[in-house]
């Protein structure tokens, strides 16, 4: 019986609700936590890679995020909100990384000019629309990219983004509007 127990419970847990998994993990259930890692780790990795603009530090940031999450799961009141809670943690860790990486640069500078990144025409024609978007996203000024990524991947509200980045709501709105227009324009040119 002990031999079969793990198999019996491993598969139902994979389909358990976020709430159930978060509650069990908060009680110290490592298997429930592992399901959460598998469920949201990939999204957190994509998120970190987008914010950091590279994959080099993604592993570290996501690992740190999950370690923090494990330690503080008991403070999460509503287990069904575990996804946005995890996204918040990885967002903070990613931003900490950026700050550490570029201490000498003011990363809150909202007036950073967009780099000139127009690809040669031949290259543009060869890449798919998806690849084009990846390239354009990566070329957004850092503050715009952070807002955009929080909005699109972490599904933050404007207010959440403002609170998270310690920016006025109007600034967040402006950064997002600018990012959206830049993306639209670039994607339109790519067509």
């Amino acid at each position, binding site marked *: 019986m002990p031999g079969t127990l793990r198999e019996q419970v491993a598969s139902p847990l994979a389909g358990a609700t976020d709430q159930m998994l978060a509650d069990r993990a908060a009680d110290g259930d490592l298997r429930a936590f592992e399901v959460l890692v598998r469920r949201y780790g990939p999204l957190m990795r994509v998120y970190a890679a987008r914010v950091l603009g590279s994959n080099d530090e993604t592993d570290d940031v996501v690992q740190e995020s999950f370690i923090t999450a494990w330690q503080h799961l008991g403070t999460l009141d509503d287990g069904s909100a575990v996804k946005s809670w995890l996204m918040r943690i990885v967002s903070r860790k990613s931003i900490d990384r950026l700050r550490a990486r570029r201490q000498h640069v003011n990363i809150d500078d909202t007036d950073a000019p967009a780099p000139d990144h127009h690809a040669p025409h031949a290259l543009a024609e060869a890449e798919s629309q*998806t690849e084009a978007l990846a390239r354009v996203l990566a070329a957004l000024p850092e503050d715009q990219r952070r807002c955009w990524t929080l909005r699109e991947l972490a599904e933050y509200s404007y207010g959440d983004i403002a609170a998270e980045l310690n920016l006025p709501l109007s600034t967040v709105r402006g950064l997002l509007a600018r990012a959206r227009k830049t993306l639209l324009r670039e994607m339109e040119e790519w067509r």
Partner: protein
Amino acid sequence: MTELTPANRRFLAFDLDDTEREQAGLNGHTIEQLSDYLDRGRSPADPSIDDSPDCDIALRGLERLRRSHKALLERDLERESLRDDSWVSSILKNITLEAHAGREIPLTHPSPTARLVVTEGAVRGVLRETGDRVQNVFVGRCVLVGDVSVPGTPISIAVDVTVFPGENIPLLAEQLRHAMYVALGKYTELVVATIDITVSDLQAPPDASAQNKEH
């Protein structure tokens, strides 16, 4: 993709800094307003947007951007899911169970110099495992209420469970309560006055589609 937009008709009439030009090219609206309009599912309908060819072109551009966004996210997630499993094990290896050990619960021992304890976390683990052996029940949070550090002090236990639809809840709760008493008697010396079981949720049995999403 079928392109309904007239050939070469593009909406580059705005520049990034000039809202007036943007509004002039979009029948008085801004890209942000059009994006919000899409977020609302184009409801309530706004004729000044719906009937404007310029807005229509911009809306299609926004929708195209969203589709590309979705495709990019799917591609990235797909790529992540193809990675080997080492990142998961690396995370699990680096977390410590002590974080959730909780209080220490003494166990008696014949030797006066020996001090044996079982942690609260371990007891919760026993309760969970016991619940997992009962069909069609998920055990969620388990709370030990009372002073567990003083041997013999009666405590109560609160357990949240999820039960699948169609189950006889009172019967299942009784079965679970009994199994938990037995397990606690086996592994601890706790004096358990009551086990309160709260059926906090009803959920459909996990289906394949939900699982597929995670793997």
